[in-house]
């Protein structure tokens, strides 16, 4: 491992992307993620790549579509309202099977909402967002170190499966400074990109990147191909952290920065003789169903804590499939639940 540095989350995303061989960044300013663009603007020339501050989020994601078509490792980043604008392009990227990395440093909504942390874009990220039957891999880091590691990983997953890979953080993660230890060299998979648009050089057949298939039989078979790919990803790429679950009275499930609060709640509860476990999905899609199935009947109940009105809890309930009770506690608008607030909720559940 290399030396430890104290860095801001947003800057670590950009540094990790450059280390992963990202050659193009297209973005549009929006709080609380704009430091990502600042970092690329300053550093990209050293790497011989392209940085463009696009005229809009819509243009930025379509530049991503173009650069990915040409075979480059490419990234865009934004925050919730900007990610909404990118949905058109994300659907086309899914349809055309292009590898791309998209960062969402989530803020509060709906509408312009506010610039403080939230997790209200869970549904948008894992259930679609854009039109049509598609999925993208969604990674939810909970520390700056993990932000670095998962950003590198996102480029590998994107290239390996020709899929869009989203890193979903929040305003806390993007804005906070933490130590990060960079590797001397990143592990970068070499992916076949013989499909890319480079010009035929009169040596091969034409390559075409498209998402339109007018013939229904052809389009259905294209969709079935996408679904087979998604199945493969579900089998191979789901990631989860399981902590203290073996004899837990209550298992809390939380992702991203909320999981950090839960670890403190676990310590507080121990002093009062209450055993709390944590299941932290690291991939929000594919969702780590097996972890929930494994511990479904261990605790007296599950509690999903989120910075929204109850979104991931729906996937938790699907995974638990009626084998246990699933409760929810959420805050919105940039409000963060306190440790005491969560512990009180656990006690209330245990009282029955």
């Amino acid at each position, binding site marked *: 491992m290399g030396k430890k540095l104290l860095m801001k989350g947003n800057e670590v995303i950009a540094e990790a992307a450059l280390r992963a061989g990202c050659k193009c960044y297209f973005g549009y300013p929006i709080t609380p993620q704009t430091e990502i663009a600042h970092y690329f603007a300053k550093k990209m020339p050293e790497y011989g790549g392209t940085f463009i501050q696009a*005229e809009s989020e819509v243009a930025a994601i379509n530049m991503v579509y173009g650069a990915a078509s040409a075979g480059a490792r490419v990234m865009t980043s934004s925050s919730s309202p900007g990610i909404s604008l990118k949905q058109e392009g994300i659907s*086309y990227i899914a349809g055309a099977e292009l590898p791309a990395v998209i960062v969402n440093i989530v803020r509060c909504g709906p509408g312009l909402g506010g610039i403080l942390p939230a997790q209200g874009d869970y549904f948008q990220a894992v259930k679609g967002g854009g039109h049509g039957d598609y999925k993208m891999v969604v990674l939810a880091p909970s520390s700056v170190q993990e932000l670095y590691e998962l950003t590198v990983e996102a480029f590998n997953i994107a290239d390996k499966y020709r899929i869009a890979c989203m890193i979903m953080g929040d305003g806390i993660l993007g804005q906070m400074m933490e130590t990060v230890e960079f590797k001397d060299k990143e592990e970068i998979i070499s992916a076949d990109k013989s499909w890319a648009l480079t*010009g035929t050089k009169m040596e091969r057949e034409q390559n075409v990147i498209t998402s339109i298939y007018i013939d229904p039989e052809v389009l259905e078979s294209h969709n079935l191909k996408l679904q087979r790919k998604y199945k493969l990803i579900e089998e191979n790429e789901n990631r989860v952290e399981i902590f203290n679950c073996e004899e837990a009275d209550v298992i809390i499930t939380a992702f991203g920065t909320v999981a950090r609060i839960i670890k403190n709640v676990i310590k507080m509860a121990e002093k009062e003789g209450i055993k709390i476990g944590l299941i932290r999905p690291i991939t929000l899609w594919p969702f780590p169903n097996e972890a929930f199935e494994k511990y479904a009947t261990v605790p007296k109940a599950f509690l999903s804590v989120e910075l929204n009105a109850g979104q991931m809890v729906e996937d938790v309930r699907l995974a638990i499939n009626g084998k246990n009770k699933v409760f929810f506690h959420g805050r919105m608008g940039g409000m963060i639940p306190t440790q005491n607030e969560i512990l009180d909720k656990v006690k209330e559940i245990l009282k029955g």
Partner: protein
Amino acid sequence: MKTVFKRPHALKDKHMHYCPGCTHGIVHRLIAEVIDELGIEGKTIGVASVGCSYNNYEYFNCDMAQAAHGRAPAVATGIKRVNPGNVVFTYQGDGDLASIGTAEIVHAAMRGEKITTIFINNAIYGMTSGQMAPTTLINQVTTTSPFGRKPELHGYPLKVSEMLATIEGAVFVERVSTHDIKNILNAKKAIKKAFQVQMANLGFSIVEVLSSCPTNWGMNPVKALAWIKENMIPYYPIGNLKGKDLEV
């Protein structure tokens, strides 16, 4: 025996799906002839858009991407920035470029992207069945202006080339027409120059091509060509707006 006429290599040997009398096919051929003459088929990447020509990758032999409605200049930007040695062109209609894609075309021009845009202006939405476009002429009847385009309701037709010519990064801007042989030959010259401007890395180049849509205009092909001459050209004058004397 001497060959006097053949299909350009850059054009596939395929029947096109365009309506009888539509000038898309002519413009496709002109682009393919230019690609052949410049010897650039192996390094050309085209970007198809949304509209009747959405699948023109079925007709061109070079590498091609298909872009969302109006976004072709952004997609072309991404491609060209990755592969600066390639020749990249977009092929867009007036609904695509002059309505939903105004931001993308203006900013590609503003950045002086080294790409070439072929802009088909037939004053109507073709594929979606004849709706009013920003380029629809005053009093022109369309399915969404059934009583004719009225300035007080719909504003005046947008002169895209004049607008783009005001932008520093747009170095070559020309409007041409397809209504007769002389103009078709001029159109080819303009398209060739636009590609050469890109190859010389001078900046953004665009050729607006006045085209016919007999089906949605409700005319036979001969009348449609006459309609370009009599109605479109008076409002959209043909000629070079910028970059005529550029050395390529």
